């Protein structure tokens, strides 16, 4: 009897994924076997686990290992993105306990779900096969649907979960159909092989099935990164979901969408760059403009940041449209900085907020600068960074994104981007006007800054400032990361 030959499998590329999966399962069991209402220790355990996974990921820097017959790869690109996911998950875990305790939904399942989300995102970043990427996307999405509806006693959270689930499934359909058509046109799902087959076509843009597949995949990813006009779900989901999860969702999964899309479009379909960059051009302009203009009118600060997160996806799409070294390195740089500044801002929102998601309007920040000067300075740094002012990380990130576009000759795209960025200053600074120039109407005496909260704010401040002051520190890694694609 002949044995089936099992290909040699190297587990090194997915070591962090395995570690986090096992940790998540252990936490799930700890949660049911150890009674008690306080679940903070699960948060501490998962934070330690995330840091350990970060060490594992960092140890793989500089390597290039393919495994599982070339469907998973360990390269600098994957490693950089894995770091972004771990940063956003780690910061989200830090701010979760206090919020969940306050809102009365401190269920221990939160932390395993976050870890499973990270596993899915990591598979998306390291997958070099359309099926692996899809699998990662599903692992990430299914856990995220639950996280969005985690506060099940709150109707808004329920709405968020259901809406995210329905539209997420819908968009997954687009993505999968696109992958199926791409497979039909090229006969393979391996990204490197797709590139080889498409490269041999005499006129790939005349291959209707391939172009349709590419556009459907683009649509699927546009849903996931909340690019206009596929952004309709974002404000409701971001507003309804528990605030720490909103912070997490707008940083980690968005970066994961970019990771997978960058790999597919830059590695598998570079011969169609003229075609897809035209579509991305329109998407980028729409996304920036719709996000910023709608954010101008929001009073609810969570909703405002939801629209601002749409706008930020638009800025990153500018770099994607350029598709050159500067632009793509800019995306990596920007996604990492965005994780810090965005989750930092959400941490302050959680601190200011009261039970039942109340006290979340811009007006509620009146006099915050007088009552809590340190936290107000931190919030100002996050807002400055989001608005893209020097010397913050947001400025440098936008600088590289837009200069990438200019290098490729997309002058108008860069101009629209800068104009948008200028418009966004209004709604970011509006919060600061309330913080510093209005008299306090409240004493903010309900606020309690716990140690994890303080740690999250401190890390976020460092993360939004250091890359802005010493850009080369992060940028050199980003540039090495994109060398392989």
């Amino acid at each position, binding site marked *: *009897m*002949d*044995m*089936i030959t*099992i290909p040699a499998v190297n587990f090194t590329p997915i070591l962090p994924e395995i570690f986090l999966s096992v940790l998540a*399962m252990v936490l*799930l*069991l700890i949660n*049911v*076997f150890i009674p008690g209402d306080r679940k903070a220790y699960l948060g501490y355990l998962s934070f330690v686990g995330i840091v350990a996974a970060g060490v594992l990921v960092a140890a793989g820097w500089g390597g290039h290992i393919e495994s599982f017959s070339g469907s998973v790869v360990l390269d600098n690109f994957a490693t950089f993105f894995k770091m972004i996911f771990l940063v956003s998950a780690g910061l989200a875990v830090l701010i979760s306990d206090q919020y969940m305790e306050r809102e009365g939904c401190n269920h221990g399942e939160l932390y395993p779900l976050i870890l499973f989300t990270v596993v899915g995102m990591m598979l998306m970043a390291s997958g070099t096969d359309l099926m692996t990427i899809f699998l990662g996307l599903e692992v990430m999405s299914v856990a995220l649907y639950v996280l969005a509806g985690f506060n099940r006693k709150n109707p808004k959270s329920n709405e968020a979960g259901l809406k995210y689930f329905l539209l997420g499934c819908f968009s997954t359909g687009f993505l999968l159909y696109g992958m199926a058509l791409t497979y039909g046109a090229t006969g393979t799902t391996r990204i490197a092989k797709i590139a080889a087959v498409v490269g041999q076509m005499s006129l790939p843009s005349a*291959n*209707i*099935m391939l172009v349709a597949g590419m556009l459907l995949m683009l649509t699927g990813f546009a849903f996931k990164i909340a690019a206009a006009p596929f952004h309709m779900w974002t404000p409701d989901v971001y507003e309804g979901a528990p605030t720490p999860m909103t912070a997490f969702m707008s940083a980690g999964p968005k970066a994961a969408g970019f990771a997978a899309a960058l790999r597919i479009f830059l590695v598998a379909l570079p011969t169609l760059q003229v075609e897809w960059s035209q579509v991305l051009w329109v998407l980028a302009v729409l996304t920036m403009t719709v996000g910023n203009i709608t954010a101008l009118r929001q009073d609810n600060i969570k909703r405002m940041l939801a629209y601002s997160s749409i706008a930020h996806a638009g800025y990153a799409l500018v770099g994607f449209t350029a598709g050159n070294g500067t632009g793509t390195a800019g995306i990596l740089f920007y996604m990492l900085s965005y994780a810090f500044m965005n989750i930092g801002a959400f941490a302050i929102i959680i601190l200011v907020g009261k039970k039942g998601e109340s006290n979340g309007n811009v007006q509620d920040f009146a006099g915050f600068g007088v009552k809590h000067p340190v936290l107000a300075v931190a919030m100002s740094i996050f807002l400055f960074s989001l608005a893209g002012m020097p010397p913050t990380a947001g400025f440098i990130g936008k600088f590289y994104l837009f200069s990438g576009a200019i290098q490729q000759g997309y002058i108008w795209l860069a101009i629209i981007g800068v104009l948008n960025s200028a418009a966004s200053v209004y709604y970011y600074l509006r919060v600061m006007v309330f913080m510093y120039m209005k008299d306090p109407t409240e004493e903010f005496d309900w606020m309690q800054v716990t140690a994890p909260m303080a740690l999250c704010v401190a890390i976020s401040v460092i993360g939004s400032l250091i890359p802005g002051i010493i850009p080369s520190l992060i940028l050199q890694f980003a540039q090495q990361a994109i060398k392989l694609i």
Partner: protein
Amino acid sequence: MLGAYLPILLLVIVAIGFGLVSLVMSSLIGPKKFSVLKMSPYESGCEPVGTGQERFSIKFYLIAMLFILFDIEAVFLYPWAILYKKLGMFGLIEMGIFIVILFVGYIYVWKKGALEWE
């Protein structure tokens, strides 16, 4: 290249056409005789009790969901069992990991009390 998909297109057209034609034709030329007994909901031949749109306990859905989860486990065991000797030690370890993952889920469900009816 696209021509290779012509049979599939034909199949889709025939399938949709057959469904449409049989529905339209039976409503056009089929005899229509109504009686009280014929229009009443079918309840296994017994006299109908209550309406057909009752609310079910959510527990049924939970059980159904768990059934599907563990059903899929069993489905995966079949191909493995058929190729057991060819897969050898590797297959055994892989399947062991798969079962352990599902077992963790089973313990979780059990301890959460999802298997208790009351």
